[in-house]
């Protein structure tokens, strides 16, 4: 009988659902052409190496890390927003106490980064970096400003839709996820090769946050909800040779 304390036969994680994940090579996003492996990946059987991973605690998180509008002397320029949601696993269970890292452009679509030479103003009151831990129900919440769209020279007249980068760990290195959250109604999405790299259209749309009255603060900030699903543990452990 298998259980998770059996070091020789740990329970693995479900493979991501069909069509939800981009391929490494996606020529419309041209940078993938020389940065994608040409050989097939080697499938690993589950061992402790893959079902464990780093866990982080509140000792690493500072009080204002979740509020990107309060990290400098003054208020950042732009529209204040609340970005919140739940982190679940694919078995619909909350992923508690897991690290969520975000980064984003300012309201003008400019990153405070040496490689961003877009001719748009920087904002000394906004550096666009946040992090938090989910609570016991898997909930997280950030206060930030709505990021601007920006040109990126990938193809003629290429503009990135407004987005916030998300990085999550979950319980194991197998559940690690880096993604981007988009905004509802953005006309740039269908022209964006990162967004269109996701084969399944419904999966793409799940990267688009939803306007949320519940978390909107009157006279203060609009709320956007973005739920995230990490891989869930395989609940049929005897099917170890799928």
């Amino acid at each position, binding site marked *: 009988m298998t259980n998770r304390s059996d070091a020789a036969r740990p329970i693995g994680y479900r493979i991501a659902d069909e069509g939800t994940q981009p391929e490494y090579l996606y020529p419309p996003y041209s940078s993938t052409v020389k940065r994608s492996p040409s050989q097939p990946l080697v499938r690993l059987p589950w061992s402790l190496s893959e079902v464990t991973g780093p866990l982080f605690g509140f000792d690493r998180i500072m009080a204002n890390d979740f509020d990107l509008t309060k990290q400098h002397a003054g208020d950042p320029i732009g529209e204040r927003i609340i970005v919140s949601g739940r982190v679940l696993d694919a078995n619909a269970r909350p992923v508690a106490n897991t690290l969520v890292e975000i980064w984003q452009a300012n309201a003008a679509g400019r990153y405070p980064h040496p490689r961003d030479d877009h001719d748009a103003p920087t904002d000394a009151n906004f550096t666009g970096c946040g992090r938090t831990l989910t609570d016991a129900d898997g909930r997280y919440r950030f206060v930030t400003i709505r990021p601007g769209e920006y040109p990126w020279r990938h193809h003629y007249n290429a503009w990135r839709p407004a987005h916030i980068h998300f990085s999550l760990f979950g319980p194991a290195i197998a559940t690690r996820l880096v993604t*981007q959250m988009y905004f509802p109604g953005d006309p740039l999405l269908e022209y964006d090769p990162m967004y269109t790299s996701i084969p399944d259209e419904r999966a793409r749309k799940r990267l688009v946050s939803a306007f949320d009255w519940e978390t909107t603060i009157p006279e203060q900030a609009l709320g956007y909800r973005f739920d995230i699903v990490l891989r869930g543990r395989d609940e049929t452990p005897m099917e170890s040779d799928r």
Partner: protein
Amino acid sequence: MNDEHPYTTSSQTVGPYLHIGMTWLVTDDLVGPGVTGDPYVIEGRVLDADGAPVDDALVETWQANAFGRYDHPDDRRDLPLESGFKGFGRVPTDASGRFRLRTIKPGPVPGADGAMQAPHINVTVFMRGMLKQLRTRIYFPDERANASDPVLATVPAERRETLIAKPVGAGQLQWNVVLQGEGETVFFDY
């Protein structure tokens, strides 16, 4: 699969500005005070299909301690944990595509079906132009257990050496990530 469950969120690239969100957790020296084990400096480069350096990659590592114990609740074996060693590393590449990490050689950990795995470091790589992470491993040179490692055994023999770091001095190892083409690193799916 026909059961009802929430769908896994899609991966997207970290993009070129990953440093803004991820630098705070850079961990390039995993070896705290009083940690057991042989220290190694592992240095390498991330290279694209043309052999050009990738100057905007992020390399994350995860490993057991010198006793072969992962600092994680799922590893319930009766082996020591050390507070000075968490097992997580995170290093960005520099302008020449180079990364550098100081750690210790982990102990052996059990593999599938109980065959012991040779000491290895689990590696995850992110970069602009990569829509989802790549996963690989670093093995240690001159390690007899490599010959019986169940994972190395599943890798085509002619590609196995891409997973094994090269000694370049006392306590110094070199290990590159070649994304595509000649000498392409073996990447794993799990």
